[in-house]
């Protein structure tokens, strides 16, 4: 940044605000991770202190890893999240391309219809979805969850991506057409790389609610073989007693994969913004 546009008080103020926000946002996360390494007594006695030599107790982690197939739950969550993400990004981008690129009758109406899902929660249709899944013999499969989450994520994805795709130069697409590229090549090779930042944004927004969802795994795929992490962690929360060590350990572990996925996307987000900006 140029020296002419920075001043010390302004820099301090900006950093002060950012640091305050970071602390507020990170506080609950740090609290969970910190307490997951403490004994039950220490959690209740002094929740705000770091685990020390006396209070350190990995009991939560041993419980979580010992009880049930937690690695399996993790893999289930990953399969469902990645599968849904792939579906949302691929079909969302294709629908957005069609809406922004082609003039056809009912184009606006179709766009509105697709955007309606942003306002109407998919959970309202749970009974219908369950009946459908039972009929299609998909209950207790990963596919059931992937289908539902793809449908859930599509409206926002189509809405955001079609706005971005409108900004891709018509000349570039037309140059491709004159050179004989198919519409698919134009979409995958010319347009998608240029809307990569938007894709990363959509990916992050789509991923988190899917990973955290309890509702649909409970209804559509509660079997041991398809249980997701969020559902798996519920065994430790009882009506009368809750195994706080295990719950905190499970939550701490559940953060890791989302963090990794987020880092992957945020990196491509930054790369998308800084490179390939050719007019």
């Amino acid at each position, binding site marked *: 940044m140029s020296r002419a546009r920075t001043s010390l008080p302004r820099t301090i103020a900006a950093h002060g605000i950012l640091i305050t926000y970071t602390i507020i946002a990170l506080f609950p996360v740090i609290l969970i991770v910190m307490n997951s390494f403490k004994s039950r007594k220490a959690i209740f006695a002094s929740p705000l202190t770091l685990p020390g030599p006396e209070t350190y107790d990995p009991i939560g982690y041993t419980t979580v890893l010992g009880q049930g197939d937690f690695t399996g739950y993790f893999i289930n969550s990953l399969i469902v999240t990645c599968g849904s993400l792939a579906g949302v990004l691929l079909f969302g981008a294709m629908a957005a391309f069609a809406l922004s690129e082609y003039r056809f009758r009912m184009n606006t109406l179709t766009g509105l219809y697709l955007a309606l899902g942003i306002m109407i929660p998919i959970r309202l249709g749970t009974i219908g979805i369950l009946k459908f899944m039972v009929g299609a013999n998909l209950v207790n499969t990963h596919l059931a969850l992937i289908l539902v989450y793809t449908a859930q994520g599509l409206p926002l994805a189509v809405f955001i991506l079609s706005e971005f795709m409108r900004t891709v130069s018509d000349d570039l697409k037309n140059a491709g*057409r*004159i*050179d*004989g590229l198919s519409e698919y090549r134009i979409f995958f090779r*010319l347009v998608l*790389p240029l809307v990569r930042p938007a894709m990363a944004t959509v990916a992050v927004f789509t991923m988190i609610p899917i990973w955290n969802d309890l509702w649909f795994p409970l209804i559509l795929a509660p079997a041991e073989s398809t249980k997701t992490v969020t559902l798996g962690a519920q065994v430790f929360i009882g009506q009368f007693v809750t195994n706080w060590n295990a719950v905190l350990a499970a939550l701490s572990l559940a953060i890791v994969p989302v963090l990794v996925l987020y880092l992957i996307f945020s990196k491509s987000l930054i790369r998308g913004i800084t490179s390939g900006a050719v007019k």
Partner: protein
Amino acid sequence: MGSLELRQVKKSFGAVDVIKGVDLTVADGEFVVFVGPSGCGKSTLLRIIAGLEDQTAGAVLIDGKRVDATPPAKREIAMVFQTYALYPHLSVKGNMELGLRQAGAPEATIAERVKKASEILHLEPYLDRKPSALSGGQRQRVAIGRAIVREPKLFLFDEPLSNLDAALRVNTRLEIAKLHRLLKATIIYVTHDQVEAMTLADKIVVLNAGRIEQVGTPMELYHRPANLFVAGFIGSPKMNFLTGQVAEKAGATTVGIRPEHLSLSRESGAFAGVVAHAERLGADTFVYVEADDGALLTVRVIGDTDADAGDRVFLTPTGPVHRFDGGGVRVGE
């Protein structure tokens, strides 16, 4: 080989008629420029010729064959865009090769044509660079190279110089003129700049609001503009238009006199007026005169003149006085 014929081509976007019936023939090897104010439908007409847009009515014929159902890649045309539209993920070489590769040309042909085009356009040092590492002028040359390698029947240029700075624009204009002489190709070139049109064209097509106003060589348009629109659009500075008594005396509704066809005098002349402003360019001076009947007239004086704002002067026509009737149509000199 590359002739083009348009028959009553029309185009509407919804209820808006953008092209309102265009008939045109372009002979093989001709350099035709579509010129007109922005928004008059030049790009739309070019995209219809390219097949990127379907016409609402009428027919497009290339080399005598109707191409209405032929996709752009099969029309044997090449197009150069105002925004260059280079593929950002491909090198300069890759950009030039893609079209041929898609058409299934043999590797040897591709290599030979890319070599030839990069020689003509002095692109050899940049062949492996990405478009993002090139300057505006270099990018435009790559875009032209991408068109040349296809050896098309028809070159289509859509305002290729608009994004370049003034000096580069003159250079590239010369390059394009040379290229036309070298390739003997049929070129259709769109611009809103009448100077580009005058300097490049064999034949100029003046468009206004989706209609052809006049077709002719640059000198025909300059000496015998068919109507007020063409008279005002071609030539710089703009032609002076006079109505009222002066025109009535000449038996017309409007008369037009080009700034270079007026002489300036301090003693006597046909019209009297006061100098409002003088623009000195060195080689010539544009003097803006407010005539006594209220009209603002431009006079082009070769070299310098001592006339300055506030001076009382007299003007006399020294060249043709164009006469136009009530409908704006030219009726004579």
